[in-house]
């Protein structure tokens, strides 16, 4: 029997008002230890506000949170020791050298002087910036500055990483490299909460996601779970080497099949219920004499899920 997951972050009715605007509305969220947790929402949905509150930078108007066993409001100091926060826009002191920058933040986290040099070298190696250790930050590319931001987040070996749009503004290669680093960090046992607009990447990267709109939580759970929720019946795509009309006729004649349509030579088959096996489609076609070339399950992408579950409302 599997042990129940241990929560790294639990929020209880987290609310934040900006004047008359409710940026966050009674958010109840749970992120388990070791999760790579995607935080999804439109601009102004409340993602950044949530991360700022969890980073102890902003105070909630109501509600609280537990972070790795520490109360957010009463034990903020302890929380700061166990989290690493990377905002979407952060100042990088352009006239500092890479090593100086990390050494400074190491001192902010009270890492002993004797250990700091080794720690700086280690995190630089982890994010692939060893060759740039003597460079001025102002001379680094955007991608490298983002990596430096990630190195800063890791300097005190936090257990929880809060990353707000870490891949924004990066080119495809830098983005892929950043995602690889995050996967490596998850493998090392870190819990990571990441907000991003690049849903296709979150889909492959994250094991759990939360969708938020107008400050309210719409969904929180495994990626597959939300897909299952939004898919209206199971869909299978079929290609046959013969004329599709015959195959369509065969399929339409069966009560297990709810709908059959064609798109660009492919046949889209919607099954009548979730209990029906996909293999029935192959069975019908082969028995009916149609030459089946390809049969694949329709997978609803995270982008489509997002579009279906949200209304595009902003505040």
């Amino acid at each position, binding site marked *: 029997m599997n042990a129940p997951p241990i929560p790294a972050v639990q929020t209880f009715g987290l609310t934040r008002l900006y004047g008359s605007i409710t940026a966050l509305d009674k958010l109840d969220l749970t992120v388990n230890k070791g999760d790579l947790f995607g935080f999804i929402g439109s601009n102004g949905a409340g993602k950044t506000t949530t991360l700022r509150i969890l980073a102890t930078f902003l*105070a909630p108007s109501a509600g609280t949170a537990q972070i790795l066993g520490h109360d957010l409001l009463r034990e903020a100091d302890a*929380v700061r020791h166990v989290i690493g926060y990377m905002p979407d826009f952060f100042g990088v002191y352009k006239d500092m050298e890479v090593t100086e920058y990390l050494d400074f933040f190491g001192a*902010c986290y009270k890492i002993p002087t004797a250990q700091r040099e080794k720690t700086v070298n280690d995190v630089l190696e982890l994010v692939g910036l060893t060759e740039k250790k003597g460079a001025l930050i102002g001379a680094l590319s955007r991608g490298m500055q983002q990596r430096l931001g990630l190195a800063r987040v890791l300097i005190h070996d936090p257990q929880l990483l809060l990353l707000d749009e870490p891949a924004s503004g990066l080119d495809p290669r830098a983005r892929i490299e950043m995602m690889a680093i995050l996967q490596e960090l998850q493998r090392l046992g870190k819990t990571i909460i990441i907000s991003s607009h690049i849903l296709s990447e979150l889909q492959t990267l994250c094991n759990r996601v939360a969708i938020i709109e107008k400050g309210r939580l719409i969904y929180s759970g495994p990626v597959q779970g939300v897909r299952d929720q939004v898919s209206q019946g199971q869909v299978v795509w079929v290609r046959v080497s013969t004329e599709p009309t015959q195959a369509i006729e065969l399929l339409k004649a069966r009560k297990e099949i709810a709908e059959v349509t064609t798109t660009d030579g492919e046949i889209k088959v919607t099954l009548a219920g979730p209990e029906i096996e996909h293999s029935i489609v192959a069975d019908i076609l082969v028995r009916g004499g149609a030459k089946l070339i390809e049969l694949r399950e329709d997978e609803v992408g995270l982008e489509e899920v997002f579009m279906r579950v949200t209304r595009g409302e902003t505040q």
Partner: protein
Amino acid sequence: MTFLPIVARELRIAARRPGTYRVRSGAALVLILMGTWLYLTKQNAPTQDIAMGLFCMSTGIVVLYCLLSGVQFTADCLSEEKREGTLGLLFLTDLKGYDVVLGKLVATSLNGFYAVLAVVPVMALPLLLGGVEPGEFGRMAVVVVNTLFFSLALGMCVSALSRSPRKAMAMTFFLILLLTAILPACGAWLAAMGKTQQLGRAWLMPSAGFSYYQAFDTPYKLGEAEFWWSVAVIHGLGWIALVLAAVIVPRSWQDRPAGAQRLRWRERWHWWSFGNPAERIEFRRRMLDRGAYFWLAARARLGPAYVWAVLGLVGCGWVWGIAKARRDWFEEGTYVFTGLLLNLVLKVWFALEAGKQLAEDRRQGALELLLSTPLTVREILRGQRLALERQFLGPVLAVLMVFFLFLTASSSDAMSQQNPEDRTLWMLFWAALMLMLVADLAGLYWVGMWEGLAAKNPTRAAATNVGRILVLPWVVLGVVALVAPLMWPHLEGVPVAKYLLGLWFGLGLAADVGFGAWARQKLLAEFRLAATRRYEPLLGFWKRVLSRGERASPAVPQGEAPHS
């Protein structure tokens, strides 16, 4: 008329700014109050004298305001757009340099023009009283508008060249000072040295002060042409500045790749400011051990050297003075000038530095990173204090030593020309100056830190700090000095120097203690809250007052106690 879209945009921004409305009513109110005071104090004087006094005072204030308008309104208008990257967007359209410059000029001159428009009726009051000729009033109106145009145009030109707000404002102020005061002073000095028979008119023509003086009836009748020449020269300088701005601005908005030579110079400057790699590592280790924020605020290792260099310059001035004037140099006038100069330089410099790091951190978004680390508010404040001590402690002690020497000299028998009462007053003056220096620096530290956190930008933070700690006591002192003769007419003829000194000291100390304690309390209790306020919509003054108590700010995650 392609500049009109820019004017429209700028006017829309100005219409939303409360300052647009406050400036014109404030300007008229100040003049009305001062005029009333002058009228009440000179009630027994002939009407013509009252009228002339009122006219001199009101026009003098207005011309001074117009002269400084460039620093306030235009010095940072183009440089700000450069910093924020919006100037480039304008040049991606069909707009030319002159469109942008003219559009900006029209829009930024709005506040200054409104203020002048509001005070012109007050300026015209002496005309009704008699004693001021219509021609005099007309010429003064020309001087006011001309000075306003010149100052705004000069600010625009400097802004086209600059990127940093502080440098732009300082350079504009220096150029105005150069043309208005330093050039005439040089001319006077040359004349005094016997190099010329009389003060050369060429030195005076670009000075707004000269055209102001020439606008009065008596000097005008003696040299009508000189007035018009001065107005023409100042006007011409304004146009030259505008043309230069229009030529420079399309060439200065882009970040150009630095050439090899420039890169070499940049690297040398970096090494010079921060030291070679080995020195930097050693310096960093030493300072980080004393406090992370200390290193952040004090890492430019030459900070103290610059302060010492300025003190050294004053020292050189003294060496030159002693060589030139021998024993005559050692007199109260020299001491007072030196004392006030050192006092002013140190305090203003300290005020600029006090909240700079915090304001910069906040502007760049680095404060968010710092506050998500376990660095406590007390550690940040301590780091900044240590950085300021590193930069200023030595120079301040040296200046205090100099003041003490002046105090000793004032009390010595060498000042035999003074009577004992005067001597006591001088000693009190130096003692008060020494105490005020220390008290003001403490006040500037706390208020500077708080303003660095709360003000819109680093320039405004420094300006507010200077305004509260250094300027406000002088303003109150000035008001008291103006009102006192009205309230206690029997005091006329009584020596008031001692009372004024006491009042100055008391007001200065009250400002230091009052504002300092207020800022300290705010910093220790609301630091994190203030740091997050940039994410909240700002309320206007009246809305803040009316909603006080209704909209309590959420508690900040503490962890560290409010005073930790």
